[in-house]
Every structure is written in structure tokens, then in C-alpha cells.
């Protein structure tokens, strides 16, 4: 007992230090790729599965102002933001110079079929009409998205112009779109 107590306490300390050291080393090695794609950078090539079938690729960003938002079903702020963006998407209905894409990024531990099922059920329950894609993590990695909600506004040349980690107001996105369309 007398010997076990300090050993167990030391295990807690050493465990946390070891895990922190491994993550710290990884952070140092991957620093250049951490943080989101900043405004002014071109997006990496990517391809993500659309919920209704087919794929959305990097090339489809070109020639349009694009609003790309990452969300998850378990993320509270994402739901209100999605509802706002869904309404905003309706405002641009019929326009071919603006497009929206809501990318579900549920996290790890799901099969592709589970991701599609979870996303489809949620989309139907919420009555979302904007285009939905289901990411297995590849697109999030390509665009360096680390947390949801995360929204970016991309210009017609495929360059990131605005990045919003966390909840963003629809009026802010609408202003960004208007500015880019005026350019």
C-alpha cells in the first residue's frame, strides 16, 4: 500500500507527460500544416462524396463564389449556422455564380455507410435543402479544418478569401459574397 500509492501517482504524472511530449513533438513537426488554410491561399485539391451521389471536387469551385462549411450532427453551434446558411442558399437559388456546400465531418470511428446514414437522417430531420457532402476526414485534412463549425468563402479562382472558425452569422457571409461578386 505504502509503495503502491506513489507509484500510481507517478504513473498519472508520467503518463500525462509522455502523451504531452508525443503530441508536442508531432505539433512541432506538423506546425507548417496546422491551422486552417488562411485567406489568400489556394485550396489543395480534394474530392468529397455528395450525399445524393457523385462527388464534389476542387475543380467545381472554379468560376463561382463558394461557401464551404464543415459541420457535425453532434455540434450544437453547427445546427443554427446550417439553418442560417440554408436560408441564405435559398436567397441565391437559380444563380450560377454562387454555390454552397455543407460538408459533414462527423469524426473518427465511423464506416462510410454509417457516415452517410447519420448525415442523411439528420439532413432529412432538419429539412436542410443546401448541398450536403460527407467527408471521411480527407477533405478536412486537405483544407486543414480542425474543428467544427468551420466556414470558408472561396472566390471564383479557387482562392480562400474569408475563414471563420466557429459560428458565423449569415449576414457576414452575405456581405462577403456581395463583395466578391462586385470584384
Amino acid at each position, binding site marked *: *500500500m505504502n509503495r503502491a*500509492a506513489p507509484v500510481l501517482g507517478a504513473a498519472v*504524472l508520467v503518463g500525462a507527460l509522455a*502523451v504531452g511530449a508525443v503530441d508536442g513533438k508531432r505539433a512541432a513537426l506538423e506546425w507548417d500544416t496546422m*491551422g486552417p488554410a*488562411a485567406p489568400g491561399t489556394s485550396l489543395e485539391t480534394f474530392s468529397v462524396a455528395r450525399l445524393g451521389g457523385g462527388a464534389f471536387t476542387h475543380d467545381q469551385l472554379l468560376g463561382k463564389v463558394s461557401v464551404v462549411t464543415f459541420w457535425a450532427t453532434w455540434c450544437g453551434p453547427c445546427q443554427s449556422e446550417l439553418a442560417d446558411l440554408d436560408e441564405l442558399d435559398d436567397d441565391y437559388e437559380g444563380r450560377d455564380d454562387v454555390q454552397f456546400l455543407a460538408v459533414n465531418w462527423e469524426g473518427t470511428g465511423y464506416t462510410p455507410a454509417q457516415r452517410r446514414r447519420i448525415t442523411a437522417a439528420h439532413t432529412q430531420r432538419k429539412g436542410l435543402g443546401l448541398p450536403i457532402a460527407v467527408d471521411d476526414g480527407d477533405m478536412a485534412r486537405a483544407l486543414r479544418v480542425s474543428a467544427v463549425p468551420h466556414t470558408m468563402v472561396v472566390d471564383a479562382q479557387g482562392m480562400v478569401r474569408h*475563414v471563420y472558425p*466557429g*459560428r458565423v452569422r449569415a449576414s457576414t457571409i452575405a456581405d462577403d459574397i456581395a463583395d466578391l461578386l462586385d470584384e
Partner: protein
Amino acid sequence: MSDTAAQSPADAGRADATAGGPPTRQTVPRALWRWGGMFIAPRRHVAQLDMDEGQRDGLTLGLLYLLGTSVLPMTESVATVLATHSIVALLSGVGRVVLTPIVVIVLAETLLGSKRGYRGGICLLPLVVVGTLARMLAQLGSPIGGHPLLPDLVGGVLVAALALWIRSAVPPEAADTKEAA
């Protein structure tokens, strides 16, 4: 889990203090003994601790939690703030990593009650252990999956259970002791 007491370091600490040296009970070995004893016989263990020791356990274990679970999220947050110059990103990043230990320690202190809340800090141990183990599994290529906050939720429930379990064994703080502190 047996319910026998861990004993010797307390006596050693008092012996050192009597001899005029720095009190051992404020040192790292004493802290390790204090934390480890919580895994063996928590009720007997907290009953024999000196009332004025472990005052920084909440801060120390909170920092260990951040080290064991949040190095990458913190680095990501710094990188995000640098990339976006966003105050929202800064607040969100800081909030995401410090919110859990703060909420959990407040929960533990609330469950212990105002006169026993001074032992709330050491109750963070299950949160540190669960969070660190979950992160370690992820590092080893076997993430536990599910909701990202699952380890925090499990850790938080264990902290609450621990606080309720040890509550009656924690000596209540006398009113004059509290005022002096």
C-alpha cells in the same frame, strides 16, 4: 478496491518539518503519494490528509489534463489564430481546452459541499486518467471513436462519483480555518 490507508509519507513529512527542513508533504513525492492513494482507498486516504495540503491539486491536475489531452488542440488553436487573426478563434480555442477541467472541478466542489470543497481539486484525477488514456489510444492508432467529448463525459461522471463517495470522509473545514485561509 481495498479500503486500507496509505500512511508513511504523512509521518515522514511531519518528521522533516520538525527537523527544520522543507516540509516533505509539499513536495512532489508527497503529491504523488496523495494522488496514488486516491486509487487505492480514497475514503480512508482523504480522511488522513492534512487539511492544508493539496491546495494546488486542482491547478496541477488541471495542467496535467491539458498536457495529457490538449497539446494538439492548443497548438491548432494557436495556428488558427495566427492564420485568421480571429478573436473568436482565440476564445473558442482557449474555451475548448479549459472549459472541461473548470466545469468538472466546479462540479466536484459543489458535490462535496462548501465545507469540504477544498478537496475538489484531487477529484480531477479520474478525468486526467481517462482523458490521457483516450489520447494515448489515439496516438497508438486505436481511437475510441464516438462523440469527441466521450472521454470527458466518462471522466466527468467518474469525478462526480468520486466526489460523492469521499464526501463523508473529508473532514469539514472549520469556519475560522476558512476565514484564516
